[in-house]
């Protein structure tokens, strides 16, 4: 059901006033590409929505010496066009074309993709692989945590009542990235499984590695055992086969309307190898 009222504050000051004036049955609205769909399907029933897409404070892509900073209200399509993203965040860049459709990318925000906490969130998965931190904001106070730890379970996050996602801080680590995904069709579909690979390979040796996966567990997961196995190894087909069999044990997929558990488990290994192939191109 759609809300009775949508309020759109245009500054943080207005936001705090809005929070004081509204009953507690309320929710933040960013790009609306999840919330509106959920309301349409009657899964979302909050009576008041606070549209935070007008908060210019949350709409930035910046860099410091050590980090890339992205505001939560940055649209996916703005990321696609960003020189900073292109330079420093290859995994996120690789995930963007797999994310929804061009028209939805014009609406959807990075913050919304994380707040929705879907186990199949492509951009959030890429950010976890990029070892991003998430900055949260409530009543003038900010706190920061690893994005990986922000996801607590199926549609569950560390967000407190009325807390909103301020933005993301991603350390600049020299690496290459790939995002591989299987879905119900070749584009504009939710993942059956997806894998984000951030890796630095020097003379065929794995120097740095971070892996995240979607749709193989109730939340986005990383693959620490696979990473441990591959780190400092010289890549070979045998090593990658071994890594593939390890990652197949690290995932915990289910059978649902989108795919089959055994298939997903097997594909975790296949996509890992495909992702390495991609970055080695």
């Amino acid at each position, binding site marked *: 059901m759609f809300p009775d009222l949508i309020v759109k504050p245009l500054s943080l000051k207005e936001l705090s006033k809005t929070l004081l004036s509204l009953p507690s049955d309320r929710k933040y609205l960013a790009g609306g590409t999840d919330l509106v*769909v959920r309301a*349409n399907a009657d899964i979302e029933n909050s009576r008041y929505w606070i549209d935070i897409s007008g908060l210019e404070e949350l709409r930035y892509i910046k860099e410091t010496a050590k980090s890339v900073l992205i505001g939560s209200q940055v649209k996916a399509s703005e990321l696609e066009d960003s020189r900073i993203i292109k330079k420093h965040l290859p995994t996120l860049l690789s995930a963007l074309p797999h994310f929804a459709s061009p028209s939805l990318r014009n609406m959807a925000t990075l913050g919304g993709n994380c707040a929705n906490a879907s186990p199949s969130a492509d951009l959030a998965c890429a950010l976890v692989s990029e070892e991003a931190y998430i900055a949260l904001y409530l009543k003038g106070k900010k706190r920061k945590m690893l994005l990986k730890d922000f996801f607590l379970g199926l549609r569950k996050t560390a967000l407190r009542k009325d807390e909103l996602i301020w933005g993301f801080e991603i350390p600049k680590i020299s690496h290459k990235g790939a995002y591989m995904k*299987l879905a*119900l*069709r*070749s584009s504009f579909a939710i993942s059956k499984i997806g894998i984000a690979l951030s890796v630095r390979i020097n003379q065929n040796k794995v120097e740095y590695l971070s892996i995240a996966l979607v749709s193989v567990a109730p939340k986005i997961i990383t693959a620490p055992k696979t990473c441990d196995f591959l780190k400092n190894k010289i890549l070979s087909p045998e090593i990658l086969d071994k890594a593939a069999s390890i990652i197949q044990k690290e995932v915990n997929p289910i059978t649902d*309307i989108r795919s089959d558990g055994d*298939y997903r488990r097997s594909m975790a290994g*296949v996509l890992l190898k*495909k992702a390495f192939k991609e970055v080695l191109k």
Partner: protein
Amino acid sequence: MNKFSYIGKSVKRKDALLKVEGLSKYADDYVFEDMLYAAAVRSPKPRIKILNISDAKAKKISGYVTLVTHKDIGGVKQWPIVINDYPFLCADETKFEGETIALVVAKTLRAARKAAKLVEIKYKELPFLTDPLKSLEKKSLKIYGSDNIFSKFIIKKGNAKDAMKKADIAVKDEFSTNYQVHGYLETQCAIAVPEPGGLMTVHSSTQCPFYVHDAVAAVLGIGYNKVKIVQAVTGGGFGGKEDVPALVASHAAVCAVKTNRPVKLVYDRKEDFMSMSKRHPSWSSVSYGAKKDGKITSCIIKYVLDGGAYSTLSPIVLWRGAVHAAGPYKIDNILIEAYAVATNKAPSGAFRGFGQPQISFAQESLIDDLSEKLSIDPIDLRLKNIIGPGAKTATGQKIEASCGLKEALLAVRKNSDWNKKIKAKKFSGEKARGIGISAVYYGVGLGAKGKFLDRAGAYVNIFRDASVGINVGNTEMGQGALTVLSQIAAETLNAPYENIRVQEVDTSKVSDSGPTVASRTTLMSGNAIIEAAKPLRNRIFTMAKSMLLKKGAESSAIMNAYQGVFSMGGKKVSFKEVIAECWARRLKMGEQGWHIAPNTTFNDKDGQGDIYSVYSYNANIAEIEIDKETGVIKPIKMSCAYDVGKIVNPVLAEGQAEGGILQGMSWALYENLVYKNGKMLNPNFTDYVLANTNDKPEYDIIFIEKLYERGPYKAKGMGEVPLIGMAGAIANAVKNACGIRVKKIPILPEDVWLGLKNKRKAK
């Protein structure tokens, strides 16, 4: 008439600009003064006994007006369709999850939907059936009649069982196909507007206004002449706007009568998914027997369609499927048994191809398996067995001269470089390429089982300013009917194309012309327009000639008529001038036309007869690429040839072909509606996906124009043809690529992956 003014030319679509500009008015765009909104209260379970309905809580919603139940129906309680088993509103028992029990009427759509959720139904759950094969079992629970069978057909020729035993080679297998959802642009919508004197006008999103007319008159219990159905611009039908809009409109009409106010009933996508018609899921067992030289001697088929909770169009969908089930081949011994069976799921109905695509997939898959066993190239095997002029079909009908199936097969074989590709090495790295063929024939129009509906009317009215207004009984739903029918009218009258306006259907303007289905609109309404235009043409051409003579043209010269200008011996006169003169002389400038399809026959005992007046033909070659690690199938190129008679508008015909190919491919590879224990799990476009433009293959479309003497400008019908054979061609390409025969639709990556895995294990 050797040089056509408009026939065979890609003139601009009549409705293109309005649609591009977003100005077309779809049903939900209409608003009337004092209009109320209705929302359905739906069955929460697959089968329940209703004990009590209470609106005590719903009443508290601001804007609530009333609750409408079966008790408010003034006319008949059962929806008149083929078999009248579907109640307009159920009284005590629902038969599928999502069935309408009652309607809430409120001042806003939001209030109506909110209140509908608050209507409390007290019920007892009843046992239910979800598997049609279980429904057929003798000891099964009975939910329809004494055997759960809505309809049954037998097609019998020669002695199929005996011939199968005597065959040198026999193949047999079982196949199944899943639902397909129409995915039309706008959900079901109707607005019922009551008028003084007990009149009712309904604006409906529909492809069959006369079905809506039947239902609304019946549910209200009033005369047809008090009911008027006006078709709103309809964004795609594919069969989904065939029968069910009548149900939606009837509900709106009952609400309008009860409140005496205009009432709009518009579905959201979820309820549209859950309660509206879909392509029937199917199960089939198919076998073919052949001689060593490849001559097919026998075909035995058992074909079962999952009809869902009510019969709706199942009997006639089944009939079309059954009569075409053996494929477009000359086979002397045939035994086809076909059943449409009840289950407690949403009623299945019409969908482009109407029972043919499911069985075409099965039999064309098996024809390929037969060719493998015989070691005969799949196209050679088909060429050896296909029907051609003079040959007889499964029902014993002799094929007439307009048959281009052989030419279609030869054309796609050449264009696709088949001979090289069929034998090529399949794997390179992770990818394997495959190529597959299918052959299709399609009886145009309603055929013997729908012959009493197979007529169409037209009214052609030439105004004094030489503009032309035309009313027909078949609808535009995106396929281009307004354009093609305008071309036919302009050609016949020698009027400029721009002068023609074909109007959306209004049931008060033209006699019942049957449904807009079965690829019959160009044929039926086209011929009706020609019949109406003929006497007008005589008057206009006679007048033009006398005017040209008056201008000094030589009387021995031949008069030419081209694109709105008459010329003779160097003199010219325009259509506009001729019409002005006709009006000045008080000639009759409006005429009715009425076209009836040639007679057809069908013997219920053995399924023999001349069942359709003419057939269209098609051959498809699908090229695909498989990722052997993921099982993902990528469509590469579709080479498809069609004999649909004369092509009236090449660009629109190509559009029909591309749309049909993509829709067929989408059904074959992506669309997967999931039911579990009678509950639909993915009633949305997030988890029920259709192919999109990124999945689009390269199209290679070929038209073989075998002229049909009784068609308008020798055209046949096209709309459904391109979809029917896609799944078979794709399944054969998958087999060719990786050796895996997937016997179900959709063919998902998971199926191919599992097949390859099992094959590796077996080695």
